[in-house]
């Protein structure tokens, strides 16, 4: 229920419904009160006139005929009786309607004294019908006219109208609120959709600055923020790229100078360090370049690619095996896929002692599985390892170098080619990297 009022439309409906219904009820009530007052005033006048007539009639009639005449004067809500004593008991239910009556009666019949008019219920106050009032008037010969009358209750038809009009009003309010709120919030919804459609880093695309002024302001502010963010990212990227770039000249020099050292143990060690440094720079740069991968998607023999990587890893002293079909074609970007699988195989060799690469061909996809015999990855870290520059804080990583981009780059490359990269700890120990790449759709070359 509360969720209904979570939207601007819902809130508009709620507020207008409460406000308008309240106003409607108050105005109806005050109108009705005024109407009732009018009605009772008119009733009183009529009653006074009738009482005056009844009294005048009965006064001139001899006492033995009075009761009969009194009966004949009855009619409508009024019943008239004549009796030698008064019947009414002052006060009681139903009398409050007739508080102005004695004053007006006395205006018409000046000889009526203070005790000559009794307004009250019939008999005791407790069990009297609240709708029946009894008025006793004293005649000049000390006998009494007793007029019993039904008090008018409010018209029952009135309460029906009350409910109907309120309901109709409420319905109208709901419909109008939906329309108005819809109209007011449409620019906001449009803006939300526009913002959602933006791609990160795509600073050329701005959201349209239209709609009411408040929404326009918001759009302008949003676009300014976007410009600031992309400028910030651009500056950072450029700075990092420049640093990595500038490292190349000294690195080239060191490599050239190494030639003079010959194949000493030191030279070999320095060469290995340089290689690591270069890999780190390459990884950082290719991560920073990110989206702007200009490589074309082409059919690639995945089996040959993995064969190369496995052979290379074996030559470097790694314990790596490959099994699966001799050829398996997928569509993808050659260099970036090669880098991705190189990272995955390197990781398996580095952290997992040995790597077993298996290729399987499914109807829709090629499934590449890289199993290692390492400690695996704690279950709660299985997602975070894909984040850039994240490295697991375990001892096994300390001597292995790297900047924590291998998996990030691998995942990005594989996803760019429509694939999927999953990590799982095998129950028997070790990590399993499972890559799915869509098979070529039959159109080759």
């Amino acid at each position: 229920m509360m969720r209904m009022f979570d939207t601007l439309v819902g809130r508009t409906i709620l507020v207008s419904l409460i406000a308008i219904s309240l106003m409607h009820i108050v105005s109806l009530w005050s109108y009705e009160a005024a109407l009732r007052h009018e009605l009772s005033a008119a009733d009183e006048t009529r009653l006074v006139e009738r009482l005056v007539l009844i009294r005048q009639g009965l006064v001139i009639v001899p006492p033995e005929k009075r009761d009969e005449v009194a009966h004949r004067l009855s009619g409508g809500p009024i019943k008239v009786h004549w009796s030698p004593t008064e019947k009414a008991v002052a006060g009681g239910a139903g009398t409050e309607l007739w508080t102005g009556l004695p004053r007006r009666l006395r205006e018409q019949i000046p000889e009526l004294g203070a005790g000559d008019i009794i307004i009250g219920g019939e008999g005791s106050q407790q069990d009297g019908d609240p709708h029946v009032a009894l008025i006793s008037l004293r005649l000049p010969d000390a006998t009494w006219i007793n007029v019993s009358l039904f008090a008018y209750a409010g018209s029952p038809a009135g309460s029906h109208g009350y409910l109907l009009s309120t309901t109709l009003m409420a319905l109208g309010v709901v419909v109008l609120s939906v329309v108005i709120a819809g109209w007011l919030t449409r620019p906001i919804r449009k803006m939300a959709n526009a913002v959602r459609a933006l791609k990160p880093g795509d600073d050329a695309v701005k959201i349209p600055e239209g709609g009411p002024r408040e929404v326009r302001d918001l759009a302008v502010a949003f676009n300014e923020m976007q410009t600031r963010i992309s400028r910030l990212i651009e500056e950072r990227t450029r700075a990092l790229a420049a640093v990595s770039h500038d490292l190349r000249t000294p690195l080239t020099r060191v490599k050239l100078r190494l030639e003079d050292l010959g194949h000493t143990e030191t030279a070999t060690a320095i060469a290995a360090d340089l290689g690591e440094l270069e890999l780190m720079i390459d990884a950082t740069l290719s991560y920073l370049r990110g989206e702007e991968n200009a490589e074309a998607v082409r059919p690639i023999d995945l089996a040959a690619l993995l064969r190369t990587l496995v052979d290379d890893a074996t030559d470097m002293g790694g314990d790596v095996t490959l099994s699966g079909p001799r050829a398996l074609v997928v569509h993808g970007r050659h260099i970036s896929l090669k880098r991705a699988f190189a990272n995955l195989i390197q990781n398996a060799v580095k952290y997992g002692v040995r790597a077993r690469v298996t290729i399987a061909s499914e109807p829709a996809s090629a499934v590449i599985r890289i199993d290692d015999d390492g400690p695996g990855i704690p279950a709660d870290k299985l997602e975070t390892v894909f984040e850039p520059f994240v490295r697991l804080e375990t001892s096994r990583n300390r001597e292995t170098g790297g900047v924590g981009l291998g998996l990030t780059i691998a995942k990005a490359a594989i996803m760019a080619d429509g694939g999927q990269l999953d990590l799982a700890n095998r129950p028997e120990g070790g990590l399993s990297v499972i890559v799915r790449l869509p098979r070529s759709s039959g159109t080759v070359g």
Partner: protein
Amino acid sequence: MLVMVDPIETSVPSTLTESGGHVLVVDDDGQIRHLVAKFLRENGHRVTVARDGREMRQALADAPIDLIVLDVMLPGTNGFDLCRELRKTSTKPVIMLTARGSDTDRIVGLEIGADDYLAKPFNPRELLARVNAVLRRSRTAPEQGAGALGHFLYFEKWTLDIQRRELTNPEGVVVDLSTGEYDLLLSFLEAPQRVLTREQLLDAAKHRIATGFDRAIDVQVSRLRRKIDASEDGQAVIKTIRGTGYLFVPAVTRS
């Protein structure tokens, strides 16, 4: 040839590498100019150096240059523009030194006419191998020049793109090669239907790998076979000549 450091470093020109050429090294970093020149001289080449486009034009006017090693990041006119400018009048072989990745894409994409490219920081031996290979190619087709020669070698509907360093099979599928396999295949394609000894093949390939190249050439050949024989029907592309070496059977065309 000038200094005997150790046996591997001494480059004995084989029938494939032939003798050194006159190389013009264009780089704005004085130390790199000096170090590259020294390294290439030690490996049998004559070297002239230039720091920018102006000096490069001067050097080209002064002496017959066989090959230009051209850095992309140069003050004034950059390497790309210099290469394009050179191509208007000359087919002289050019090896570009690039920033890894981004510039490489530009070279391959823009058809600026470089014969090969190498990303900085490069391995000196890799540079030497590229220099030798490009010189070799330009000599097999004299006056045409490697730049105008095109970058494609064909055999049995397979294609080797020398610029992209990429092999595609008859179906147009990219078949990945390791550096060693690529070098070996290139050696075969440059001397097809000729018996090549293990020593010749090893000599052509060994410059590529700085350290740890201790794999026998036979292993490389068997790896290469596994990749290019995959779609062949029985007939071996690379024949073993018992006791001597290997023979690349198919005819090779280039464009």
